[in-house]
């Protein structure tokens, strides 16, 4: 996703002279073209994320459209108070872009994992939280956030994730994108889980379960209309995210659900368990560890579907 982010950035900066990029000393070579074209609108803020976030807020207060960019935990949890006070309290249009959502940088250890950021940022008034499902959604999200006039967080994966869209999708903040129709269960995927969730739907199909898949890219504001439909139409709605089981998409949907009369569907939350991963291993290993592979997602969904299915299902 990050290469497409850089490519799209070049285009939007050419179209909108208010766009300024602030990097936390990462993206070596990634922004070479941008820096060549817009040297006065690129700032390497060093390894000083608190300062970077407040600088961005000051720029936004002065009519610019700053975009901050560094590794996810460092542009979210590290400078949380700067986001809260300078960006959200003042309600100014800073676009915070994190690279390395969830377990993308698993091999770097838990310091580089980011499984708490959705929970923290969606709690902040005025903040929009978007977790794009592929590089096309990254491009769309950047454009959509620029159209807004308030704080936004875009939670990207890393590079080289499979593309699931064929081009720029119909993208609207707060509106999930139905990727695949189904009739038995509804899988709400947010962020870089989308390719795995589509594969999980294939697995479920082999087991006789028809799964609808939604790219639920916006965690805040929630797509209440889509949720209302899903919880009344299906017997089971699952949320899938590379984020803690506490407070992310699953948590947000559980809150939504608890405010309503009992719905037809049960909720299954699939995410990262409430613990740190201490071992070495890349993203694939970490996904296996936490049960986020297509097979594990399909298995958990199938297990619960069996308990509520109108007729017994046999795999």
């Amino acid at each position, binding site marked *: 996703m990050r290469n497409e982010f850089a490519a799209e950035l070049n285009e939007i900066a050419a179209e909108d002279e208010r766009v300024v990029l602030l990097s936390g000393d990462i993206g070596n070579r990634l922004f070479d073209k941008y820096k060549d074209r817009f040297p006065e609108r690129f700032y390497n803020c060093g390894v000083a994320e*608190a*300062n970077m976030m*407040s600088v961005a807020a*000051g*720029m936004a*207060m*002065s*009519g*610019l459209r700053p975009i901050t960019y560094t590794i996810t935990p460092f542009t979210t949890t590290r400078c949380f108070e700067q986001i809260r006070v300078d960006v959200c309290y003042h*309600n100014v249009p800073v676009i915070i872009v994190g690279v390395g959502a969830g377990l993308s940088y698993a091999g770097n250890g838990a310091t580089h994992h980011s499984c708490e950021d959705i929970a923290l940022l969606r709690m902040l008034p005025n903040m929009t939280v978007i977790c794009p499902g592929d590089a096309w959604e990254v491009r769309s999200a950047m454009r959509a956030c620029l159209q807004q006039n308030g704080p936004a967080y875009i939670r990207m994966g890393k590079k080289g994730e499979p593309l699931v869209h064929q081009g720029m999708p119909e993208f609207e903040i707060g509106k999930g994108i139905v990727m695949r129709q189904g009739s038995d269960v509804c899988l709400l995927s947010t962020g870089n889980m989308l390719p795995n969730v589509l594969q999980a739907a294939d697995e479920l199909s082999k087991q006789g379960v028809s799964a609808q898949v939604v790219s639920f890219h916006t965690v805040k504001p929630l797509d209440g209309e889509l949720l209302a439909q899903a919880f009344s139409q299906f017997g089971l709605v699952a949320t899938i995210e590379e984020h803690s089981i506490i407070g992310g998409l699953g948590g947000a949907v559980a809150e939504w659900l608890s405010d309503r009369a009992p719905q037809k569907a049960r909720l299954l939350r699939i995410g990262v368990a409430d613990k740190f991963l201490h071992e070495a291993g890349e993203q694939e290993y970490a996904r296996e560890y936490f049960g986020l592979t297509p097979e594990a997602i399909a298995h958990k969904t199938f297990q619960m579907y069996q308990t509520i299915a109108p007729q017994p299902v046999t795999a």
Partner: protein
Amino acid sequence: MDIAHLEATARKIRGKIIELSHKARTAHLGSSLSCTDLLVAAYWGTLKIDPKDSENPDRDRLIFSKGHAATTLYATLAEAGFFPQELLDTYAEPGSKLPEHPSVKCVPGVELATGSLGHGLSVGIGMALAGRIQKRSYRVFVVMSDGECNEGSVWEAAMFAPAQKLDNLVAIIDYNKWQATGRSNEIMALHPLKEKWEAFGWSTYELDGHDMKALVDTLRNVPDGSGKPVAIVAHTVKGKGVSFMEDDNNWHYRVPNAEEVEKAKVELQLV
């Protein structure tokens, strides 16, 4: 520049600050009195800003980063004509626009909501860079406390601004030698403060923060031709202007009673 007029204005504002603290029963009086002269020198002697056009994109900006001393900012802005005195009198009342720490755009002239220390300088850098990018010639003044320099983010900002050669940025440190619960030099090793800023790449000045002429002369001289951001270490006295409050840190939290208010006003030549 009529320095005597500025000094009289500062005395009047000090009297108002003491009244506000008494009436609303709010803390931080000592901190408010130590930075009063800094704000008077800035608003009456330096800043290019029209109180009736306080959103003009070309205005000089003053960020009041030590938000706990909000009464000084409010009383100064009201005295300078940014908003009516009647509004000032609602300070800290339930539903008032004027909370104990300045909230977002609560009244004209408040550039930044502060109260959490260590934010103002970085936001000021953002504003100063925006001015450069947009080819505007305004300057950004950030008033900070010495206790605020405990915050690590201040030193992130202190390293960043000189790297960007931001000569339209000024950090003014209200060095009153106290923070909430003790001597600021004993809690953190602030000393030597001027040398610290100098070592970080700032063009530094050290002055008596109650010497109105020195303040105005220094503030007006920004940019100072060095190509660097300017740091002014202003030596001040916490509780300045009232003999029984000066350099007594009990007045970080204490609220004056009616008798003390009257005594203070006599000392300030207001009655």
